[in-house]
């Protein structure tokens, strides 16, 4: 029973959602199921928050390696949670928007979360440069093609690409670096992406059918869990 009920729910919801696309009478049911999904998605936040507290709480309790980071994580989590739940310093009071300017939540977001997140992303520039230096080596034919494509795209994404090849006559404009970069994106890249997308779509269809028919049950976990 523990396994049958989830399989029946999955089959029913999957079938109705497919039917709702093709048969107007089932459209309303499809909408209702979408709303159920959105409600369930809200509970994922509780689950995620609970899991975060459990894992980092355990680390702090056991004084595991780098437990200090866990303490910072939990402090940040509870501070943001309190600021959002109780709308601390919110100009409009408890009934107003949590993101109102001047509220503690929005201040923490603007002055701590935002710069920290941006700094983390900015570090990518350094790692991309280091990785490019090590990875882009013309070791064979394929790697050389990749290297040339990378060069064109890198130049094409800067104004220097325009300046460097502006002298090329209009009838050969495809050879101008920005146009070559666009061609790479809209021809070879497009063909590759479409092939991958079609492959993924076929995979999703077959996996969905397996789920709806109850053949695929790994999402339920094992009986031992």
């Amino acid at each position, binding site marked *: 029973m523990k396994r049958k009920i989830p399989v029946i729910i999955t089959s029913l919801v999957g079938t109705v959602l497919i039917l709702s696309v093709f048969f107007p009478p089932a*459209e309303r049911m499809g*909408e209702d199921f*979408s*709303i159920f*999904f*959105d409600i369930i*998605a*809200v509970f*994922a*936040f509780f689950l995620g928050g609970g899991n975060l507290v459990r894992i980092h709480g355990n680390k702090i309790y056991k004084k595991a390696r780098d437990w200090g980071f866990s303490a910072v994580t939990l402090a940040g989590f509870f501070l943001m949670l309190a600021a959002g739940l109780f709308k601390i310093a919110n100009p409009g009071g408890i009934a*107003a*928007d*949590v*993101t*109102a*300017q001047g509220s503690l*939540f*929005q201040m923490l*977001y*603007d002055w701590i*979360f*935002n*710069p*920290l*997140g*941006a700094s*983390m*992303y*900015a570090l990518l*520039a*350094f790692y*991309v*440069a*280091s990785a*490019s*230096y*090590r990875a*882009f*080596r*013309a*070791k064979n034919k394929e790697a050389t093609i990749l*290297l040339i494509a*990378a*060069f064109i795209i*890198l*130049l094409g*994404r*800067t*104004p*220097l690409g*325009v300046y460097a090849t502006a002298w090329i006559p209009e009838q050969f404009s495809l050879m101008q670096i*920005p146009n070559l970069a*666009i061609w790479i*994106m*809209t021809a070879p*890249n*497009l063909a590759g*992406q*479409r092939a991958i*997308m079609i492959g993924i779509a076929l995979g999703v269809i077959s996996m969905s059918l397996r789920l709806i028919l109850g053949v695929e049950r790994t999402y339920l976990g094992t009986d031992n869990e």
Partner: protein
Amino acid sequence: MNNLGLIISFLVIGAGLLWFLLRALQGKEVERRIIFVFIGLAVSVPILFSITFAEKASPIVKAVYDKIENLPDGSRVLISYDYGPSMAPEVEPMSNAFLRHSLAKGHKVYLMGLWATGQSIAATAIDSVVRREFPEKVYGVDFVNLGYKAGNQGVLNVIITDIRKMYLTDVGGIDLDSLPIMDGIKSLRNMNLLMSVGGGFPGIKEWIQFAGDPGHIPVAGGSAAVSAPLLYPYYPTQLLGLLGGIKGAAEYEAELKRHYPQFADTPQPGIKMMGPQTLAHLVIMAFIIIGNISFFVARRRRG
């Protein structure tokens, strides 16, 4: 000052790269920390000297600009903030430019987010763009912030037929039916243009698949450079245009500045960031060349 900065940048970085090129000819590799120093210089010097370049909108960017420009005044434009702080420096210039352009054209703007962080970003955009540059625009009449709802593409699946099944109030708890901007709006199908700014999941792809395609509503987007290649298969039929990375944002800002002189003095972070990006790209390319030279020299020595 601009030219002097450019010359100093090239001299400092060029001399260093030349030194490592000579070392590469001896088959010597470059340490990771050296690359980090050069990238640091490449991104900081153009910011210090305010190095900017002239930008021209490419067709894929121009298509978005033209769409907003050619919509009749008072059209309904929805902007979805589908990103977080980590992606903000790259895509925020796009969302701000879309918002600025739409309001300048007199369109009605609906803000929302499929990412939880989108709600705060939309609030910041209202404060930094709408309140400062368009003080005459009235909340609830000219623009509204619908906020964030959990459910990813599930939210789109519902609001494509009925917005009020997900959003009974705006972000501040005001009944949607009491806002004039919501008059005649039943679902996303009543929008004239959907714009998603982001680069992850859920994002532009979900807007196309769950809103644009089923509702036959034009979709445009702004995406982080790393995600842009994944969206090209949808252009131009399902995605009318796309701003890819800082370059896309800079092109859009340049186009906006060209046609709307009143925005000449507004912040243009896209154009500003193209200086560091250009120099960083050049440094990366130089290191790729240096890496290949040292690789071939070392291989020849090994025989």
